[in-house]
């Protein structure tokens, strides 16, 4: 397919924090005019990334926080034998780059799964502003904590022996996150391939497809190519919460 030529949406690039739909996720509720302006000056709005483009690579020193504004990214670590382990998928409103703030280089790579736009906030500038804007530091901690909590879902999920539970946990999490940014939580558009999903869930790709087919047969999901509709959210929740010894 001919890639669409990258069209730069100037409005999108110029858009400030004040009219960003995601600002309740980033900013303290109390923030006002001059503080917003101060923040706008440190937030760099980047050219959108196309599918497959890299935001940052492992070991590169680039201490900055990135906020996904639209689209989605995956983060992954390269293993010694050259394989990759996918660590997470990041949708709009989520942070990427937290593990690189120490200044010792990024511990993973981040790559766009589809056309995505991001805000970049250099860490040194952010600490300056955070010291001056009341409430911003607390908000930052809250946002980082939320991000960290979400990333803990992965090891917890990987502890589950039931493959079905792993996939259900992932889908429920994605659905909750969509609700958080005001999207329909029942309609998931999977920007990652089943190979990427299999890698993330620690399952064989055939297993991932078999699980989707089973959940479709159970009338929990309705799968049409990349689009997944959650037909029965309580049933999905039950699958996610099912303990390993329940068959």
């Amino acid at each position, binding site marked *: *397919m001919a890639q669409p030529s990258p069209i730069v949406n100037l409005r999108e690039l110029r858009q400030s924090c004040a009219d960003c739909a995601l600002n309740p996720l980033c900013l303290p509720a109390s923030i006002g005019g001059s503080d917003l302006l101060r923040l706008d000056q440190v937030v760099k709005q980047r050219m959108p990334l196309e599918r497959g483009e890299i935001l940052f690579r492992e070991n590169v020193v680039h201490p900055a926080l990135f906020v996904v504004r639209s689209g989605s990214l995956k983060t992954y670590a390269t293993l010694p034998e050259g394989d990759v382990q996918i660590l997470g998928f990041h949708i709009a409103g989520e942070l990427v780059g937290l593990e690189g703030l120490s200044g010792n280089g990024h511990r993973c790579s981040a790559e766009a799964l589809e056309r995505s736009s991001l805000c970049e906030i250099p860490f040194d500038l952010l600490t300056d502003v955070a010291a001056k804007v009341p409430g911003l530091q607390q908000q930052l901690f809250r946002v980082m904590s939320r991000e960290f909590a979400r990333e803990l879902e992965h090891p917890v999920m990987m502890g589950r022996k039931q493959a079905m539970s792993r996939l259900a946990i992932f889908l429920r999490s994605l659905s909750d996150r969509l609700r958080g940014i005001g999207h329909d939580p029942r309609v998931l558009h999977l920007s990652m*391939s*089943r190979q990427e999903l299999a890698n993330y869930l620690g399952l064989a790709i055939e297993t991932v497809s078999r699980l989707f087919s089973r959940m*479709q047969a159970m009338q929990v999901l309705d799968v049409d190519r990349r689009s997944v509709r959650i037909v029965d959210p309580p049933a999905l929740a039950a699958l996610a919460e099912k303990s390993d010894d329940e068959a």
Partner: protein
Amino acid sequence: MNANTLIHPVLARAPVFDAELIARHNVNGPRYTSYPTAPHFNEQFSEEDLRAIVRASNEDPIPHALSIYVHIPFCLSPCFYCGCTRIITRDRRRADQYLARLLREIAMTAPLFDRDRRVNQLHLGGGTPNFLDATQMTTLLDALRNGFNLSTDAEREFGIEVDPRHADAATVRMLADVGFNRMSLGIQDFDAEVQLAVNRVQSIEQTREVIVAARESGFRSVSVDLIHGLPKQTTEKFARTLDEVIALRPDRIATYAYAHMPSRFRAQNQIKDADLPDAATRLALIGQTVSTLGAAGYRYIGLDHFALPDDDLARAQREGTMQRNFQGYSTHGDCDLIGLGMSSIGHIGRSFHQNARDLLGYYAAIDAGHLPMQRGKLLDDDDVIRADVIQRLMCHGELDMRAFGEHHGIAFREYFPVEMERIDALQADGLVVVTADRLTITARGRFLLRIVAMCFDAYLDAAPDGARPTYSKAL
């Protein structure tokens, strides 16, 4: 589903053959084995496009199963009515040259598809697929089995078109051994005069031998093709052909209408206009076919297909799972289709593509290490919506406009204002019935499915390069 539709509505109404109505609507139109139809493919569609589309199809949460079509273009002699892409030769070595390219095409194509994607449907068409001898056929099937994950289920649909004039019981056993479980045979007409006029002399005995052997070798379904409108055909003589065909008890019968277009198909120049049956006879032949086959226990499937009630296709139609694709009606329509060989058509995701339509072009592409596709079409949302309307009408004979609209995120009547006006005109003529939510093809309209489908074809008014593609008559 309506509470009063206990059985599939298409079956609740036996089709009614209304000669006057059919004569009035007998205009040219596509057969909709695809939408958009092949004349609307373009050469901007590239090999890179195709590779990207295949890659994306592997990435779906549930990748579609696969269907493979292989085109074998050679025939030993020309049947004068034929409009297929074919090459007449008696030199069987040409099959070796062709097979070598097919094997390379398989070697280039198979690795593009994830190995866990099962091939549930395989079809060898032509030309004459049994132009290949046993060694060549085995080589081809081995290559397919090596490259792809071919199903071994009894429900698999592995079919081959067989010319009984060049096949015997041993051929049929060989085809069963390499994995085929469905067969379609050309008969066209058993009448000696007709057979001479179309250059296809084939005895009932030859045909019976192949069908009996197919049954004994475990073929799940045997289909035969008949053609009406051939030179020298009369209803008196065709009645005998129908009786003889019914006595052979094929599971499916396809009855095609001969489309006389000698300017497009050179071999048709051998057919004398004076020998062709007139319009009234052609209609009578169709009416006679419908009533005779119906009385013999065959169910009308749609368009030009009949099947015994316990055949998989009749069952799929009852259960509403029947689909339509390049092989006509099918029980495995929801597959990504891979076309192999000269002129074959593939359908992956939201795209169609077609291989080079001449042997030289096909060989040149393969020899240069390229996928031999030559043109194609990326479908937009509108194409997908219209294709789905046409598919449903062709297969189920009805459409729940509200459910359909919800599925595609459109308000049906607002999306199709002009189309619904055309449908209203057909309603006035008794081809369809339209209620608040439902569009249903009437018993009379079932022989005019193409006419109803054409109402939703956005390309009929907008032919490429100012030239309207030539389609055969609706019947």
